């Protein structure tokens, strides 16, 4: 028996050639092309999905950030408004106080003036009363005093006594 395993037989070479090329052509058309395309498409879709997820995440983060920003701004604004309101309130209270004080002072001033007037008027009345009374008294006293002649002469002499002719 000869062992020519290292010697290719023409028939097998021919059939291998035919079979392999046929297999290559058929598989290329009916298997590899659709398979590679499908795998490529799937990979692309997965990549797209991942990219869009990433984008959505970024968008989400952006929105959250924006919300936070808005919240912060709103809070700041609220604080400002509250502060302003407080200031306004203080202002109003202070103004009112001033006004009240001024008004009070004015009233007191007026009252004092009135009182002074009243007092002056009352004093004037009392003076008049006192003067008329004293006049009356004086008239009555004089009347009484000068009822007798001697007394009148005594007084004149007295008075003349006092008057020294110098």
């Amino acid at each position, binding site marked *: 028996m000869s062992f020519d*395993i290292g010697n290719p037989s023409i028939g097998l070479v021919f059939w291998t050639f035919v079979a392999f090329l046929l297999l290559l052509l058929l598989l290329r058309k009916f298997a590899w092309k659709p398979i590679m395309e499908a795998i490529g498409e799937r990979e692309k879709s997965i990549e797209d999905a991942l990219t869009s997820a990433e984008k959505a995440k970024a968008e989400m983060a952006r929105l959250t950030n924006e919300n936070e920003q808005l919240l912060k701004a709103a809070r700041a604004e609220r604080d400002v408004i509250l502060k302003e309101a407080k200031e306004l309130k203080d202002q109003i209270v202070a103004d009112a106080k001033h006004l009240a004080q001024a008004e009070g002072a004015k009233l007191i001033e007026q009252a004092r003036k009135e009182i002074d007037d009243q007092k002056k008027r009352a004093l004037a009345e009392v003076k008049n009363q006192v003067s008329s009374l004293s006049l009356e008294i004086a008239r009555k006293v004089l009347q009484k005093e000068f009822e007798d002649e001697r007394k009148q002469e005594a007084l004149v002499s007295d008075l003349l006594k006092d008057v020294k002719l110098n």
Partner: protein
Amino acid sequence: MDFRHFFDSKKISFIAIFAVLTTFSAVQAADTATADTIAATSHGAHAEEEFEPTNMIMEHISDAHDWHLWGHTSIPLPVILYTDKGFEFFLSSEFHHGEHDYHGTYYNYRLVDKKKIQVVNTAGGVDEEASKKVWDFSITKNVASMFLSVILLLLVFTSVAQAYKKRGAKAPKGLQSFLEPVILFVRDDIARPNIGHKYARFMPLLLTIFFFIWINNLLGLIPIFPGAANVTGNIAVTFVLALIVLVVVNFSGNKYYWKHILLPDVPWWLYPIMIPVELVGVISKPFALMIRLFANITAGHIIILSLISLIFVFKSLAIAPVSLAFVLFMNVLELLVAALQAFIFTLLTALFIGMAVEEHH
């Protein structure tokens, strides 16, 4: 999620593979034993013919004109001869395992050494002169097995392609999910790193080479009918594959590739040495591919068959368990080698293509 059932099924499938391989080894042993006894009984004159492991092994790893099933039964295969007078078609069963000559239309043919078809002259001897003019294009066991693998590949991958078409961008399922990682492996670990961005054009070739070699390696490991042919361990097959690689590599070679071969970057007076060396390199790369695949697969088959032969060499049943244990080990190893050699062949093909299409800056 509960993955226990998955491990269970893995364990079960491992046991199944183990059982099948054991059966195969046993069948192989029985097969060889019957062949041996038949050989012994057919030569009645010698009461107990010496068992020749070399003959048995060579017969098993060589091509044949019929597909042996068991004992004396085999499937006849068509013989196609191209003679100087025209084509001859007949079934290999006409030779009755080489015991009879076949009277063809143009010549009388004889099956010599169970595989060589030669012309017989009127005197009953082999006509060497006429035999040289006969070209044997028979569908031999290897050819038939190769056709079987081609059909299998076509069925498997067209169905997978259908699955891709039907399921679109959804996750793979069934056979598709088994083969997708392999396809992606060829693309991402073989083609892309070695060829670069121009890899897509060569994907069909690389995938076909990979799966063709792999399935033929696997079929060769089955010792009974649908397998048993040593296709990828035949130098004719590896020669064709290497030739295709040679053609593809050189036809896709760009100007840098040819400049590297014909005008290498060495002083001009070295050209008489460098150019022949580079040209030898062009041939030797695919040549190494051819020899590597052929030698690896053939060696694996020879080792397994040698281990089985031990039983008959020692003529003892006691050696059988030892022998079978080794055969089993070798079979599992060959399962690895089957994928490994397909991978190496494809990887080197991609590497050679990559070297040919590489752009220099």
